[in-house]
């Protein structure tokens, strides 16, 4: 059982690293485009007002990416980044399934449900 754990964790490590690199590449690309397009004084972040829907919904972000909106490309990168720990939990569920560990399939699924709730269903 220890051996299977190690193997899964190795793959998890590879997946996480890849996810982070992909996310960083997207953020960097969006960042370069953003800086290339902006010439004025810097935005003021001292007062908080919620970001518009094109940055806070998946469809908004994807639409923005399709028209090469720099900030949407950055948001896509952030979404990929947030997805990496979620994918990690999914891989653990698969690993526990292979080991026939029903208790931990259940426990990991609960964690996954909480994560998916926060990302898609809340409010």
């Amino acid at each position: 059982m220890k051996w299977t754990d190690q193997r899964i964790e190795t793959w998890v490590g590879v997946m996480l690293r890849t996810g982070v690199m992909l996310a960083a590449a997207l953020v960097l690309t969006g960042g370069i485009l953003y800086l290339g397009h902006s010439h004025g004084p810097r935005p003021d972040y001292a007062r908080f007002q919620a970001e518009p829907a094109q940055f806070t919904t998946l469809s908004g972000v994807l639409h923005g990416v399709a028209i090469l909106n720099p900030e949407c490309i950055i948001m896509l990168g952030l979404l990929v980044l947030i997805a990496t720990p979620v994918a990690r939990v999914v891989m653990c569920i698969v690993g526990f399934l292979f080991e026939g560990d029903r208790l931990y399939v259940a426990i990991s699924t609960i964690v996954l449900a909480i994560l998916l709730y926060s990302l898609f269903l809340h409010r």
Partner: protein
Amino acid sequence: MTTLEFSLFLFVTSIAAGLLGALSGLGGGVVIVPLLTLIFRVDIHYAIGASLVSVIATSSGAAAAYVREGFSNIRVGMFLEIATTLGALVGAWLTTRVPTHAIGIVFGVVLLYSAFTALKQHHDVITQRPDPLALRLRLLGSLPISPTAHQDYVAQRVPAGFGLMTLAGTLSGLLGIGSGAVKVIAMDQAMRLPFKVSTTTSNFMIGVTAAASAGLYLRSGYLAPALAMPVMLGVLLGSLIGSRLLVRIHVRTLKIVFALVIVALGVEMIVNSLQGKL
């Protein structure tokens, strides 16, 4: 100041934050919010969003290293993650309700506490006492302490550990940090797990906890892409450099120096919050 200058300024500062986080062992997240709010005058909600993103980046980025060590206990981590992710939801909800200066004070206190615990010397108190709940949930394992010897362990006081993890998650959601310090304490002190297991398992958990609150922050509009961009990239670079440097540097002296910096930031946060300047 133009956008380009501002972004570069943020980028360089974030590299320093990532470096500081990696070398002090406290993570980049703890320093980002104070730096953004105190130096760049960024509203704390935007700062928390950017910080949380950096926490996920460094956690997932560094994961491969911890995985190789093979000390983390996935089952313990996964079970406790129920507590941390639920806590993170509560914390992220709280952050929309609690006034900024209160968040600032809590943050300052957490900084002071993290610095204190980072410096404390540590002694493992390992037990193999068969705690019934731990055995039922299989919260146990075996830690290799030398090429030939293993140390078996069983988690203790599971409800207390679960409770502390909920707190860790709440703090993570409220403040946009990884709460690594609280997580390690919960596993190490409350649940009597070997220190190496606690630290590596905590690293494994931090990203998942942060992802739970990140989803909420994103949908509430707390993630400003143009702000998160230089911060995330800077912290990632800084922590990568920091973890390379760690191998060559005398850790203890560094920890003391950086703990002092963090204490200074903590005091600043509290003072600024009380003065209403945050």
